[in-house]
């Protein structure tokens, strides 16, 4: 039998080319196929199936991010502009301006598996976040399992191998109590099944790898029923001398880890298309199978090889398998890959299957020939399989050989530039919106309870306890902490072995805001992530961000318009905070063809961040520590309640105004706050986000250390915030802090001229949350009863 074939394309017309792309599952457009046709006409030959597959991987949305690089004609409120690449304009150029303003902070960005920032003179830290949406929709356990496995490999393949030290996982699901008859398509897995599968998938991979899962979020919305979102992130640490890597001619290319099989064929191209009922049947092959122990052995090998200085270059095998990994290594320098050497899980695989298989747990390295004996010995020690795949040769040609035949011979230079896509987007600014006083809470205590029991806010404890968040022994600020060990925190903070400094990690997403005002969402996500890091003790000058977008159909101008606005909001906030983006990823086609038409997700931006905590004494939790402390509120509360959980519960999410972010003012406040942290004045701090001040106060009180007495009348407000807005608005930029009575004057002096006020105190007299408004009682509830509602919200479902 032949292991490859030539595909005649020279004589095909546009329609036939598109048909070919569809038959081969290449996910290439007609325009792309015509460009391919032109390249091979130039070379005066027909492509092989292997070559077409390689190009399809290289140009896939998953690998090349062509929508983020597209030329977009954006029309906002009738005014038109042309954006040449969202990525270049709003992420890369912006971050490069920030790099210039903070020399020495960002050590690597945008070209490696993950970006690195300086921790101290010797060490750097990095973070990478990926999505694994489509696989998790079809096979939740395996999809999430390999999602976390993949992002861990990204870290192992960052620099010459970074050590994974912490993970975060963010999910968007349909509500767990979704009724079966609400599902409008066959073959769709109920949100509860998706949630259970996904959480277990993350648990079983992360726990076995010995990487603490310390961060995360879960959003529930019916728009995610058909397209659940699964973001997996991992942070790493590396000695700074191992960040730079290069493939030169004359190196050996080796693979370490798992074997290659037919699992995970076309994952990269599959994730660049929409889902439908048939996907649940047909695309199962695209979902990989995870084996964390295989990866653990490969990880032990890579880190030891790095420390022995045996690695010149390393990358992971992710989307596109060897074709992407070898492509990344050899596309410029050139070289040969011998498929006969690849160890297979099953016999009879043809050339293209071997080359693009996304079988898991494989790392690809470029090493010096003289290092091979020691590397082989190391592979034996850690019981992992090492395969010599080929070599780099300086020709600039990527050659793939199988059974003594050349099955692929590509000069990759014409492939670097995929045809630029041209897209249209529109956005219409919503009408001026109603004031919160129109939706005044009639029973604030009942509304607070209802918020604390909302799926958006309830404790994630049943999920968190399934993750080992303590392994490696470095988790200082845990996802659940405080005196009773079960109160929510804003960031995770980790010790870093070999450094006096610590790493804070956090994430924010607000899809509910994006339904009404994606620009405000973009800015607020950056603010919330940044604020949570600062709250936990990170230095505001040492924070780096990641952007991960999930969007429905990019060919729908309104959906793309939402993304454009979101990116603009996000970029503006990041520039103000001087917080660079060091990595990011986007996922499109998160829509599903149901019987009643396509269902898209709302534009969902996840902002994650890492920050440097300069000293362990700066680590600050979010739970009340003592009675007789003073409670201060930093930041001004506005009247806008749009996008809030309160507004959604009242059914007025789209009617009320969504809050804007005044990041310049916020940053000044955060700087003063950080001064206060360094002076040791802050006992605890909690960001005010979903559920507003009311929920934030209750959450701080869940440590059970003291009762709270609060006067809403003292709260700094802007534009006449109503009582309801004071309680439940989600105005960004605000921090709630606990301060010892003796430190209050110093704290207020530090905030001279900024929005801050003493709004209450903690007390040993009772264990209630007592909120009044200038003498009138508004809420008076036992904290343990509120906690009961919050703590048990998810337990019936998970």
């Amino acid at each position, binding site marked *: 039998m032949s292991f490859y074939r030539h595909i005649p394309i020279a004589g095909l017309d546009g329609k036939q080319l598109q048909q070919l792309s569809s038959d081969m599952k290449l996910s290439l457009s007609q325009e792309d196929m015509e460009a391919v046709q032109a390249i091979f006409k130039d070379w005066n030959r027909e492509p092989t199936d292997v070559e077409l597959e390689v190009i399809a991987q290289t140009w896939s949305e998953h690998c090349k991010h062509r929508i983020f690089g597209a030329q977009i004609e954006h029309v906002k409120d009738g005014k038109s502009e042309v954006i040449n690449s969202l990525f270049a304009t709003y992420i890369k150029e912006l971050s490069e301006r920030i790099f210039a303003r903070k020399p020495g902070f960002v050590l690597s960005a945008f070209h490696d598996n993950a970006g690195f920032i300086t921790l101290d003179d010797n060490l750097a830290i990095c973070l990478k976040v990926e999505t694994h949406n489509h696989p998790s929709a079809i096979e939740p356990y395996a999809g999430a399992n390999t999602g976390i496995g993949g992002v861990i490999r990204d870290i192992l393949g960052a620099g010459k191998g970074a050590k994974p030290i912490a993970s975060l996982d963010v999910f968007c699901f349909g509500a767990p109590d979704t009724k079966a008859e609400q599902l409008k398509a066959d073959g769709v897995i109920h949100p509860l099944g998706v949630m259970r599968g996904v959480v277990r998938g993350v*648990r079983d991979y992360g*726990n*076995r*790898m*010995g990487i603490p899962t310390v961060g995360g979020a879960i959003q529930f919305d019916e728009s995610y029923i058909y397209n659940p979102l699964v973001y997996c992130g991992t942070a790493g640490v590396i000695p700074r001398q191992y960040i730079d890597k290069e493939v030169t001619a004359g190196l050996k290319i080796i693979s370490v880890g798992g074997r290659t099989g037919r699992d995970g064929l076309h994952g990269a191209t599959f994730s660049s298309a929409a889902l439908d009922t048939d996907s649940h049947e047909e695309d199962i092959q695209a979902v990989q199978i995870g*084996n*964390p*122990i295989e990866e*653990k*052995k490969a990880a*032990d090998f890579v880190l030891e090889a790095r420390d022995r200085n045996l690695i010149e270059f390393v990358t992971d095998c992710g989307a596109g398998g060897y074709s992407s990994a070898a492509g990344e290594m050899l596309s410029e320098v050139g070289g040969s890959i011998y498929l006969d050497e690849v160890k297979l899980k099953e016999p009879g695989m043809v050339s293209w299957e071997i080359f693009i298989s996304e079988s898991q747990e494989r790392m690809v390295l470029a090493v010096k020939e003289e290092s091979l004996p020691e590397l082989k010995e190391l592979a*034996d*020690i*850690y*019981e992992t399989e090492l395969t010599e795949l080929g070599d780099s040769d300086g020709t600039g040609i990527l050659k793939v050989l199988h059974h003594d035949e050349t099955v692929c011979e590509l000069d990759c230079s014409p492939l670097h530039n995929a045809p630029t896509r041209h897209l249209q987007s529109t956005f219409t600014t919503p009408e001026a919106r109603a004031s919160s006083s129109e939706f005044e809470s009639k029973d604030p205590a009942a509304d607070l309870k209802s918020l604390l029991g909302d799926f958006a806010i309830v404790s994630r404890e049943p999920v*968190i*306890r*399934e*993750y*080992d*968040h*303590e*392994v*490696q*022994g*470095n*988790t*200082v600020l*845990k996802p*659940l*902490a*405080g*005196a009773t*060990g079960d109160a929510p925190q804003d960031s995770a903070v980790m*010790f870093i*072995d070999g450094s006096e400094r610590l790493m804070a990690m956090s994430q924010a997403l607000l899809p509910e805001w994006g339904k009404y005002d994606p620009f405000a969402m973009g800015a607020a996500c950056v603010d919330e992530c940044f604020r949570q890091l600062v709250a936990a003790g990170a230095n505001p000058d040492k924070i780096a961000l990641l952007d991960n977008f999930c969007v429905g159909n990019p060919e729908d101008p309104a959906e793309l318009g939402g993304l454009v606005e979101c990116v603009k909001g996000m970029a503006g906030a990041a520039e103000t905070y001087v917080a660079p983006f060091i990595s990011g990823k986007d996922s499109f086609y998160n829509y599903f063809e149901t019987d009643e038409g396509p269902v898209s997700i709302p534009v969902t931006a996840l902002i994650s961040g890492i920050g440097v905590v300069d000293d*362990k004494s700066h*680590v600050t*939790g979010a739970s009340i*520590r*003592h009675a007789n402390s003073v409670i201060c509120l930093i930041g001004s509360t506005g009247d806008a309640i749009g996008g809030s959980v309160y507004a959604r519960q009242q059914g007025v999410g789209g009617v009320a105004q969504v809050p804007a972010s005044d990041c310049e003012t916020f940053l000044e406040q955060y700087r003063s706050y950080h001064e206060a942290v360094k002076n040791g004045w802050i006992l605890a701090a909690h960001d005010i986000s979903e559920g507003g001040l009311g929920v934030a106060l209750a959450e701080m009180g869940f440590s059970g250390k003291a009762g709270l007495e609060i006067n809403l009348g003292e709260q700094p407000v802007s534009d006449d915030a109503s009582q309801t807005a004071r309680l439940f608005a989600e105005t960004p930029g605000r921090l709630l802090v606990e301060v010892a009575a003796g430190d209050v004057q110093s704290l207020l002096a530090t905030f001279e001229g900024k929005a801050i006020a003493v709004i209450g105190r903690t007390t040993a007299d009772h264990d209630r949350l007592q909120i009044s408004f200038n003498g009138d009682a508004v809420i008076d509830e036992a904290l343990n009863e509120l906690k009961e509602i919050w703590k048990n919200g998810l337990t019936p479902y998970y």
Partner: protein
Amino acid sequence: MEKRPHALLLKFPGTNCDAETARALKAVGFSADVLPISQVSPDRLEGVDLVVLSGGFSYGDYVMAGRLAQLVSEQRLGDALKQFRDKGGYLLGICNGFQILTRMGLLPEGSLIHNDTGRFKCNWVKLKKGSQKDSPFLRGLPDEFELPIAHAEGRFVTKDASEAEALVADGFGVLTYTEDINGSFNQIAGLQDESGRVLGLMPHPERFIWSEHHYDPDWKNENGGEHGSGYYMFQSIFEEIEEKSGLKAKA
């Protein structure tokens, strides 16, 4: 170089708490090496005072936790670990290590099976020292203290419930949870053998070395020191070994 008590950590594919356990051992004064199981042979136990099997998921624990690690260890070491103990050596198994030591028969008969909740559980727990018999690993600790647990298969059971009761009464059950955590008979969290030189426990002492490891920022240890309970566990066995081997006198 000054001779210090030496600890050897055996590492299986899937062992993942070796680095922080070695760090904890070094923090109290041990010299410590991590040795992948592929390199292990009986002669590697020479000069070793304490053998540690740290936590993780050896070989994935896809069959009963610790079962494959037990088979591989026996293949590589025969009864060398039993001889090591008989000659006065100390053995510590944490979490997966406890499961492995139990399967190897180095600890009282019983099984560590799935938690009665059917779930993995990462939590801090309160522990109580057994009053019947002293353990050289626990000497420096108060009667009650806290450590984190993280396991799916930590429920200690015996063929007959009375056997577990006897284990506690006879001083083998040196560590119990103060409340029911996972369905363990008699709330057993840790066991020692007849000699007292072998200890297995589900909680993770290496994760509570400094006071900052505790979830409550206001946690203070009883002596006002900066260390967590786990530190004192490692320090206890360090001191025991120094004393028994006369290293202390020499130093």
